[in-house]
């Protein structure tokens, strides 16, 4: 019995002939290796240079951008690497923010305690919500995470102690510690930058560890992962809890940044916006979340100065990216995978 048919070899983009456009990281590997450090150094120096450049206002803007990027990175971790399309991530941001409010209301003023509590409480909520939600898949998972986030939203609206619908003002800044408080007006900026750098480095490391490979395997073929002996549900739940906790931390930082917390920060439209920013940057790409957040918020800031209808050009940009760079903007820069190919 003969079987003459064989699968044709699937050649990678570059092996198939022609001259495909290589990502920048492939063309300039040395520069790509140093780029994160250059970005980090530039961001660290920014508050010192901003007054000379007349950009003091933008120190606060970049701080907000970094905080949103922390939340977006956590969403990118579960959605981009784990394939969990959660539409309720803002719920965890809100839980973190309200954890800070609860501690302040109780008389605590340590920022580290408040942010630690934001991380922990959001992690507990993520464990409870994930334990139920991760039993579903696809559109049902999207709907159930959305439903839980909306439940949290209405819970916050009903919390009269913490301002209900009107929100809660944090009139006294949280204390960072004896030697940090008052050291420099922008010390909070550097604290946020350090936390953001740790979060990015942490997610990046985990995403490229064995656990990260397993998570990507689950995203691509859950059944196969089960057959390979992986406790898929537990692995997904671990990722979901980690992402929820980090989103809660971002919520705690956002509460400190805004000095104000309201239920609107956990409305489902905020979850959708986070999702859009991650997709714009590149799902499952190391730099996807910060890039998407930076581009979106910067354009929003710039366009607002020129027109009240700033949603229009942003919407057009999103359409352009979806049609012309469906893998996100980070795909233009990052090298992923093979010596020859891209993924």
């Amino acid at each position, binding site marked *: 019995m003969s079987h003459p048919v*064989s699968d044709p070899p699937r050649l*990678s983009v570059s092996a198939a002939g022609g001259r495909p456009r290589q990502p920048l990281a492939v063309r300039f590997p040395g520069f790509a290796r140093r780029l994160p450090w250059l970005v980090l150094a530039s961001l660290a120096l920014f508050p010192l240079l901003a007054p000379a450049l007349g950009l003091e206002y933008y120190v606060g803007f970049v701080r907000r951008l970094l905080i949103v990027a922390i939340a977006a990175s956590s969403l990118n971790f579960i959605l981009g690497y784990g394939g969990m399309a959660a539409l309720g991530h803002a719920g965890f941001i809100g839980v973190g923010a309200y954890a800070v409010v609860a501690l302040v209301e109780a008389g605590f003023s340590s920022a580290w305690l408040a942010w630690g509590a934001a991380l922990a409480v959001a992690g507990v909520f993520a464990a409870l919500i994930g334990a139920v939600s991760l039993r579903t898949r696809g559109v049902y998972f999207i709907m159930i995470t959305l439903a839980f986030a909306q439940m949290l939203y209405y819970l916050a609206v009903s919390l009269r102690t913490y301002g209900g619908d009107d929100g809660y003002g944090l009139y006294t800044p949280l204390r960072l510690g004896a030697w940090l408080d008052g050291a420099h007006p922008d010390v909070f900026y550097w604290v946020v930058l350090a936390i953001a750098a740790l979060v990015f480095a942490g997610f990046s490391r985990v995403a490229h560890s064995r656990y990260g490979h*397993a998570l990507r395997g689950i995203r691509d073929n859950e059944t196969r992962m089960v*057959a*390979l002996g992986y406790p898929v549900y537990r692995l997904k739940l671990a990722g979901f809890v980690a992402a929820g906790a980090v989103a809660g931390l971002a919520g705690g930082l956002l509460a400190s940044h805004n000095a104000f917390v309201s239920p609107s920060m956990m409305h489902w439209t905020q979850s959708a916006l986070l999702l859009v920013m991650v997709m714009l940057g590149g799902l499952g790409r190391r730099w996807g979340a910060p890039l998407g957040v930076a581009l979106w918020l910067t354009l929003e800031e710039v366009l607002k100065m020129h027109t009240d209808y700033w949603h229009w050009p942003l919407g057009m940009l999103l359409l352009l990216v979806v049609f012309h760079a469906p893998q996100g903007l980070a795909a233009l820069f990052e090298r992923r*995978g093979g010596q020859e190919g891209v993924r």
Partner: protein
Amino acid sequence: MNAVPLLRCRGLEAGYGASRVLFGLDFDIRPGEVVALLGRNGMGKSTTIKTLVGGLRPQYGEILFDGRPIHAARADHIARLGVAIVPEGRQCFPNLTVREHLVAFAARRNGAAEPWTLARLYGLFPRLAERAGHMGNQLSGGEQQMLAIARALSTNPRLLILDEATEGLAPVIRDEIWRCLALLKAQGQTTLVVDKYVEKLLPLADRALILERGRIAWQGSSAALDARRELWSRYLGV
């Protein structure tokens, strides 16, 4: 050869909803044995494998792996006990490199005296070493098949199950797969193989089972089946 079976099926019946596919299968696989599971399309080979690896809960009967009942166990638990499957269609992960495939699933379990390290897997399939940085979907069909086998081996399985491992491959690649299976047999790997190429499979297998409409129509040594060509035409359509 050790006479205590590594896998024992007794009265195994399984199917999909009201439709029964397997009817009382009784068979053993002993440690170090290579067993060929044969039969024409639709006779229940894939259902048997699906049931063994926990993808389908048996309706009746029991499956013992190393003396432990596994017929009610979850698929991931069965895999961790040491049952690995190379699935039909290979199912490599498109977003993992060859190296990541082999590192991500590597498990130091089952008390393997000589565990399957990356170097050992590359030794078995040198082609994979050359393609280490390529993604799962950037490989030819033959390379994907090698990767699927290597991925299963990286879990250090006590029982390796291959479902149509040579399906759709060029003859030269098929020969490469057979060569590797012979090497694995020489190293004492217990294996259950489903394949259409009976003439290639029988010299490799110690024993063969023939399924006919969900029942074991014949089982015996490969040499005995080789000598009875009328069984080939009756049950295998060869």
